[in-house]
């Protein structure tokens, strides 16, 4: 990623401020009903009250623990499966289109099936998030290991490199940046799936609170939760991009 200039940073900050101002304007002057969109001040007040409750922290814990478990499963299964598939060109050619085809199916359609299998608790959301995030990780891992430059492998072979040496010094460093990108995309998908799954069908967690607030006509609480998730998501994505840039830059010039 290109390092952003100060100018771009100012424009980004300006964009956020404009969104906030628009929000305020719509509620204060624009006449948008507070049941549909409460003013920012009310949302902030509700949020402040919310973080003092035990329920808030219990929900946050359930959701983030679900995301962590789903992501661990998706990342390890995706990398292992992706790598093993690329050990045969034939299997790669057969399986790569199957996986990318499956990835285009909106897996949200299968959420009811996950609920049938794993129940209404966190387990179904973990399974759903893990399944969804598996695809970008596996697909990127396949792309990374299937397209290691032939000339590097040939050179290593001619120098008498063992299989392990070739893996350690050629395959891994060559695949690394692409795998890392897959891991970042996988995380974003995992985050969205677990929260989305919770919002559609759940008894606990942040998503459950969001849908509950909407049903109970409590817009302040609804937007407080949404704002919390938004800020957390942006912060996590910034963190992941920073890690990605760092390791990729260090590893491949």
């Amino acid at each position: 990623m290109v390092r952003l200039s100060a100018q771009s940073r100012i424009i980004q900050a300006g964009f956020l401020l404009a969104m906030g101002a628009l929000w305020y304007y719509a509620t204060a002057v624009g006449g948008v009903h507070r049941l549909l969109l409460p003013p920012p001040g009310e949302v902030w007040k509700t949020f402040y009250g919310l973080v003092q409750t035990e329920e808030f922290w219990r929900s946050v814990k359930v959701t983030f623990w679900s995301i962590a478990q789903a992501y661990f499963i998706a990342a390890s299964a995706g990398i292992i499966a992706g790598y093993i598939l690329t050990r045969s060109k034939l299997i790669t050619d057969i399986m790569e289109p199957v996986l990318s085809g499956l990835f285009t199916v909106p897996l949200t359609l299968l959420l009811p099936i996950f609920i049938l299998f794993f129940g209404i608790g966190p387990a179904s959301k973990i399974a759903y998030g893990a399944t969804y995030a598996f695809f970008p990780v596996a697909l990127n891992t396949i792309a990374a290991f299937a397209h290691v430059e032939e000339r590097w492998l040939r050179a290593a072979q001619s120098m008498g490199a063992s299989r392990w040496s070739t893996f350690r010094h050629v395959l891994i460093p060559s695949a690394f940046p692409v795998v890392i990108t897959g891991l970042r995309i996988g995380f974003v998908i995992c985050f969205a799936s677990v929260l989305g799954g919770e919002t559609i069908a759940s008894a606990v967690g942040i998503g459950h609170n969001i849908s509950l607030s909407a049903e109970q006509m409590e817009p302040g609480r609804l937007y407080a939760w949404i704002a919390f998730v938004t800020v957390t998501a942006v912060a996590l994505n910034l963190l992941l991009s920073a890690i990605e840039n760092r390791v990729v830059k260090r590893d491949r010039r």
Partner: protein
Amino acid sequence: MSAPDANNDVAISVRNITQRFGEAGSPDEVLALDDVSLDIKRGEFVCLLGPSGCGKSTILNIVGGLFKPTQGTATVAGRLVEGAPHPDQIAFVFQESTLLPWYTVIENFRIALKFRGMNKAEWDDRAMAALRAVGMASFARHYPDQLSVGMRQRVNMARGLCVETPILLMDEPFAALDEQTRMVLGEDLSQLLAARQKTIVFVTHSLAEAVFLSDRIFVMTARPGKIKTIIDVNESHPRSPDFMLEPRFSELRNECYALLRDEIRRTVAAQRDPQPAGT
């Protein structure tokens, strides 16, 4: 006087090699090499010269053990090559730089020496000596991407030399370089060789490069590749650029060209649309 032991003089021996690519019997099947035999003596610099696609690189890859020929055998230092590299005998220098971009220059040398199972204590001494020989010692801590194409290829060549194998196989090592860099690197190579008793097989399609560097030039035919003629260049190493100004140099070059011209025409004709009959 007893006859010299033939095996001691011959570094590389290729016997009746035929190479086909593509599925047998399919329209894609290509006969790349057709019953090629050749002997290369110890300490000799040999060029394989021929039109593109004539199988020059294929010979090199077979001798280096990167793959097995369809038929025939290759022997290196008395040992049969059976589709497996002999890194203790042979080093490769390829056309494109094969330096790994995630390692610095010196790390690339260490890896090469490690792959060949050299003693760790010797890695840096050997690497630096090879880099000094090509005038690149001050770039040891640079990454390949920070070097120009010419510098990269210089380093690439030094890496091939640092492992000190008796045989060096060079597959168009200077093809990606401009004419001037190419001549300078050619001179460097000639200098480096004078000091070491190496057997070199060098693939090229540059006539001047072939004449300037070789002891013998193996001129090949268009596909399917065969050895058409062997030309001797009687000139000791290291060769100075003055050699290129001698009438003998031009004569040899013209001789090569005369031999190659028909082959190049055949290659070009095969790549064109079929001509309508009777024209």
